[in-house]
């Protein structure tokens, strides 16, 4: 009976952790909506992540590497389920433009405290860049998900 009890406890714990993981990332329907709302831009890639912050200074979210080509205008869009979008920020940066000090661009302006759903970036140097999706400073307290979309706008005219 004791062994049965231990088995039950372990099974419940395993299921609890599994369902937590299963609900982690955004559903494909949201990814599709976000990817096809980029006007005439061509969808290239998505960045899908769960977000959960237990402590105020805890780093959350994810970063990804992405190769961008010179002479191309890209669009970076951020989508999240209702009520969660205003809590998250997508940032484009590299080693010379650190995420926290001077990134190339992000969906949240720390100075004006305003959000934008997307931004366009003209790449002038082929290479590796980073995309991150994280909670805004001071935000977070419930768990959720967010998805970033990289799309091709066109050859840069600049």
């Amino acid at each position, binding site marked *: 009976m004791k062994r*049965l009890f231990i*088995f*039950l406890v372990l*099974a419940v714990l*395993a*299921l609890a952790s*599994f*369902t937590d*993981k*299963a*609900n*982690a*990332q*955004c*559903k*494909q*329907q949201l*990814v*599709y909506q976000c*990817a*096809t709302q980029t006007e005439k831009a*061509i*969808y*290239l*890639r*998505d960045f*899908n992540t769960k977000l959960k912050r237990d402590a105020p200074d805890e780093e959350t979210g994810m970063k*990804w*590497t*992405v*190769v961008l*080509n*010179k*002479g*191309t*205008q890209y669009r970076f869009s951020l989508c999240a389920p209702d009520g969660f979008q205003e809590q998250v920020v997508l940032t484009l940066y590299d080693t*010379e433009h650190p995420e926290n000090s001077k990134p*190339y*661009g992000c969906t949240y302006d720390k100075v004006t405290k305003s959000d934008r759903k997307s*931004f*366009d*970036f*003209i*790449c*002038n*140097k*082929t*290479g*590796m860049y980073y995309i991150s999706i994280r909670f805004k400073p001071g935000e977070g307290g419930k768990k959720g998900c967010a998805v970033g979309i990289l799309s*091709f706008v*066109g*050859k840069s005219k*600049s």
Partner: protein
Amino acid sequence: MRNKWLGSLALVCVTFMQFSCGGCNGGSEDDIKFIPGDEANTSDVNYNSEAMNEVIESFPPPVEMAALVKDSGVPFSTKYLLNPDQVNDYTSSFKKALGLGILSADLGYLNVYSKTSQILDYLVSIRRLTEELKLGQFFDFQSLKRLATSDDNIDSLMYMCTQSYRNMDEHLRNNQRSNLSALLVTGVWVESLYLITQVAKEQPSDRLRETIGEQKRILNNLLPIMKLFKNSDKNFEELVQHLEELKEVFDVVKITDHVDENPQVRDDGVIVQNEYSVVELSKEELQEIITTTEKIRNKIVK
């Protein structure tokens, strides 16, 4: 009685986990489907795999170079594409993975130009390769076929093709089949380079020359990855030799980085990178890259 009860509990657990699995990496049942036993014949290289996966993952998708070519005003032509029936002769996983990358790049080209009538032949060949590589669960042929036969759905078709490619690549990397993932991205890159060099051969422009020259940086990231697998297979050894030959002709390309003091944000809100690279590549050097790319690509697809 106890055994019966435990059996029922196990069944409930398994059923519950199967339902929950629909949410893994996406959330619903129409997302990625996992097929047990797909990890057979693994041959990963146990060397800094996290960094390697990061580099592989960062590579541009099959559609990007084609979009750049179309945006340059270059008319569509099937002569740049591989005959999809050619992959029927591929017998090894090596050739199939490389072929899958090549056909994915060609499919991206057809998608960008909305050539839906020609897409079906490529979808059929890609389906064959994905099934033989045990990646069929990521390639929903029937849905893609339905989208391809309706001109109104080109955006959905492009989305689904790119997603399928990403899911296959991610699955390979997450299941100790990074060697095949590396071949997939190499196939895409070689075919994309072939496309852009062939276009530059016929319709040269400074913009295309610059884009080709900048591929030196991509190759310099790709080659170390492929070298990790060099000793695992004779085919890899041969492919690395081809890429090294390509590197030799790219080595003459001189790329220098500069910083512009102009403002970074345009009036329309577009952010312009204030660092920029300058590519120095003569007409003769470009011709050498075009010739070598053509030679290597045609060897690879044989």
